[in-house]
């Protein structure tokens, strides 16, 4: 039989516990920080979590991205973490470290198994809470303890063998290992296990007659159904219909079952006495630090599960170099996540793009045919910076990105049906507000500004806005139909043009290339089609 814990010591016990964690009963909470923030206590609140998404989310389609990342994980409420960009390079590094550790398949599986057990534990605790019968409640609680101890023990084992490099994960691992080794935890686990085994071994009989039910011991009576099946076995002809009744899975027992259970308890007094004692002693057994880990690790798991979808389709992700000084940002083979998500689902082709700023360059002016991927490019630029500031890997083979203070976007509002003057006014008001908020460390993304006025007006206003941004020295992507804006000879501005298919100029490639906006793209592609370009002529003309 299992060891008995002396019941009278119960209350006094807790008081002793404060200075001796290695004792039976409720142990103090784990002492370890967050796995999301280094030195969590000094992290400014706005970096930690934000209930509301930042203003840029809508324009950059990041709302959809976060929705896809957190889908199926609603219980963890992860979106607020994705809403809050980090403000320090160390915080970004802290998360990148943990994210890299989580790239290991074995660790991801261990975390998934842990999460599944914790979920099971919560379900069992809920069942205990909802149960109307004491004997049922005690058993649900016992099952929750069993799952919990298993979850903790397995996680401690898995983290121990995972070869972790991240500061945050190592800190948690060490605290957890201590906990799993502690006497209090061992006792909790062993008691739960032997108690469950004793209950599982119980077998009883019910004799049901009209209106009454008698509960008695099982005395080896033979299986009636098996005997019937045996007698008729010779007629067996292969598969036939199944007549088993689909009994509903009742969440809770009815009063007749409860009466039966009470009588089973009378037949088996020892096991049920031990169950009652266990319930009294371990009412509160869940460690808040473990609950916190359970949620926070899902930030990494969720993001990497999302990334896997793209990697599975051959699209690259990388850990960006993040700087809070160098503005020479760049990325290779990057793409818009929201769009790629849709295309991957539909088995479409995702077009990757490159961008680079060198030396004093700060501003991309993107021009070219409509529906050529200009807005997508602008979104990609913004998404990359937001994701990098969360400590996440970003789309692309490699990326150097800037740790901004504000990501400000101005996209044309589609639904606004206002008169031209009203719209232009609205544009100006919004741009003004953006420029007011912007600092040299901000990123601005402007999409089709001043489309609702005359060309001359638009040029004038556009040049004025760009001049201010240049003066500010902030990073900017400006999508515009005004080629003149791109033709500025200033060294701070880089012209990007959406390309068309050389063989069929009517076909958009969604490639955005670094090239002068000289309007030659079309003419060149027609020459390509007729094989009269320099390259073609060299190949075609025989020597």
């Amino acid at each position, binding site marked *: 039989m299992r060891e008995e814990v002396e019941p009278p010591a119960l209350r006094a016990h807790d008081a002793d516990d404060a200075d001796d964690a290695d004792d039976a009963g409720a142990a103090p909470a784990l002492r370890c920080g967050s796995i999301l923030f280094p030195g969590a206590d000094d992290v400014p609140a706005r970096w930690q979590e934000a209930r509301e998404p930042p203003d840029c989310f809508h324009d950059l389609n990041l709302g959809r991205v976060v929705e896809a990342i957190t889908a199926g994980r609603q219980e963890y409420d992860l979106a607020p973490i994705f809403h809050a960009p980090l403000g320090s390079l160390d915080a970004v590094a802290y998360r990148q470290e943990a994210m890299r550790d989580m790239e290991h398949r074995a660790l991801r599986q261990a975390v998934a198994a842990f999460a599944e057990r914790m979920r099971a534990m919560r379900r069992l605790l809920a069942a205990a809470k909802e149960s109307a019968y004491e004997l049922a409640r005690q058993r649900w609680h016992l099952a929750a303890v069993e799952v919990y101890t298993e979850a903790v023990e397995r996680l401690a084992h898995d983290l121990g063998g995972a070869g972790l490099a991240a500061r945050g994960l190592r800190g948690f691992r060490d605290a957890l290992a201590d906990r799993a080794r502690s006497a209090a935890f061992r006792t909790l686990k062993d008691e739960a296990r032997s108690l469950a085994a004793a209950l599982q071994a119980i077998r009883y*009989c019910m004799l*049901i*007659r009209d209106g*009454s039910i*008698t509960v008695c011991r099982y005395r080896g009576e033979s299986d*009636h159904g098996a005997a019937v099946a045996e007698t008729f076995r010779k007629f067996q002809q292969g598969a036939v219909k199944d007549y088993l009744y689909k009994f509903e899975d*009742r969440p809770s027992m009815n*009063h007749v079952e409860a009466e039966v259970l009470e*009588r089973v308890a009378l037949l088996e007094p020892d096991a049920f006495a031990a169950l009652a004692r266990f319930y009294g002693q371990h009412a509160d057994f869940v460690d808040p630090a473990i609950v916190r880990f359970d949620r926070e690790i899902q930030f990494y798991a969720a993001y990497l599960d999302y990334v896997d979808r793209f990697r599975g389709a051959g699209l690259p992700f990388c850990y960006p170099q993040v700087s809070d000084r160098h503005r020479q940002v760049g990325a290779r083979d990057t793409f818009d996540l929201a769009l790629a998500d849709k295309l991957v689902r539909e088995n479409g082709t995702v077009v990757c793009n490159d961008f680079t700023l060198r030396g004093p360059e700060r501003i991309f002016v993107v021009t070219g045919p409509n529906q050529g991927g200009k807005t997508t490019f602008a979104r990609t630029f913004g998404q990359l910076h937001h994701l990098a500031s969360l400590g996440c890997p970003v789309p692309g083979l490699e990326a150097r990105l800037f740790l901004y203070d504000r990501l400000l976007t101005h996209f044309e509002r589609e639904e606004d049906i206002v008169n031209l003057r009203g719209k232009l006014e609205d544009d100006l008001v919004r741009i003004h507000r953006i420029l007011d908020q912007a600092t040299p460390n901000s990123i601005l993304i402007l999409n089709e500004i001043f489309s609702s006025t005359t060309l001359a007006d638009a040029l004038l206003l556009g040049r004025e806005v760009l001049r201010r941004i240049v003066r500010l020295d902030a990073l900017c992507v400006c999508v515009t139909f005004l080629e003149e804006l791109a033709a500025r000879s200033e060294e701070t501005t880089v012209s990007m043009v959406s390309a068309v298919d050389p063989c069929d100029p009517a076909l958009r490639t969604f490639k955005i290339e670094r090239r002068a906006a000289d309007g030659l793209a079309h003419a060149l592609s027609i020459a390509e089609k007729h094989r009269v370009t320099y390259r073609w002529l060299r190949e075609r003309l025989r020597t």
Partner: protein
Amino acid sequence: MKALLMHRDRDFDARELPWNQRALVQDLELPTLLAAMARGDKLVHEVALKALLTGCRNDPDTILYRQAIARDALANPAALRELYGLTWEALESKRKSFWGVWGRHPSSVLFGATEMMQMFAGMLRRLRGIARAHAASFASEGFTALFGMLERELTDEYLARVEAHLAGLRFRGGVLISAELGPGNAGRRFVLREPHEDRRPWLRRVLARDPPGYTYRVPDRDEAGAQALSDLRDRGIDRVANALAQSADHVESFLQLLRAELAFYVGCLNLHESLAALAAPTCFPWPSAAGQRRLRCRGLYDPCLALQMQRRIVGNGVDAGARSAVIVTGANQGGKSSFLRAVGVAQLAMQCGMFAAAESFDGELCTGLVTHYKREEDATLERGKLDEELARMSEIVDHLAPNAMVLLNESFAATNEREGSEIARQVVSALLEKGIKVFFVTHLHAFAHRLFETAGGQAAFLRAERLPDGTRTFRLVEGEPLATSYGRDLYERIFAAGA
């Protein structure tokens, strides 16, 4: 328990009919044959059709096994019909009874299954009785095994045990159920238990009372409680109800299989009686394994034609020996098509284990029988006739394996003779090279003539006999294809009509 009247070792299973079943039925006029076999019995019709169409999967051993059973059937018509009738009676009384419509709840399933089992037990006892009465006059391995099995499995002792079980399942002393504690301490793993039979003297029984049980009585007005109690009871008897209901289904499916397999022989018997009434001869063929080129028959005729005309018709003798092709030429209305049908029907009859419409028939089994007949109706207006024909030929080629048998009836005649002959030559040579047997009724003289010159050893050439005065004898004689104008005239007339 199995009937095993169609295969020595397994149930008759004809769920998958050959891909070209519709063409076979149409081209070989099978509806006439099937009607004579079924005499209005839909089951016989269905089983006979399936048996005929799936015969190409049978080996010679299976065929001889069925032939022996069929001989028994022809020799004991009354006993056969009595057995068949009993299976109908049992299955019909199940179908008509209310037990067939069981509720979903275990208690109603159990009640229905018990009643049904009771009825089946009686039927099985009668089945055994018939077997016992007629066993001596049946000689085939199949029937001997079936009757032996019924004697062996359905002993009086066994039937008594069945009765005892059925009585016990009425639970006069209450339902005893064992259980364990599952999640939330709710009962689970409910197992119905047979109460110990108490054989102790009454005094010891009284003195040695087991540790007492604890009884809960549901209050009289507690309807939810009564429901919960019956729910528990249902959980206890669920498995036994399922076991019994499934057993009843098993007995039913045994009876269904027995009925279906008997139906085939009832069909044979019916057809045999009809042909015998016309004094038309029948014989059990001697099947050779596929690949052993062999075709020798006497008095081969088309039973469908005989049944339609209600008289005995002229048969043909052929000895193709080891040759893979039989090319039939000659005058129209000379019995060529009827011969081709006779060959096809005899082949199917042989392969399914039935007798053939001939005085004698030695043939080789084929791996598949396909027909390529001139189609009169043009389903799609977009396609030309030759186009449609060749598309069908292409589909056929997809399904051919070595030692298959192809019956071509005036194929490739939808173009001029030269081109038709060339197509025919290419198709037939390829088929022969790939080990496929060809029976070709044709007016394409250039083709037939060339084949005669170049591949005479591989093909037998039959000609519809036409007496000098123009009379058709409906007899085929072996001989070189003639370049006479009969065929050509007719061909041109047909072509002109078709164009």
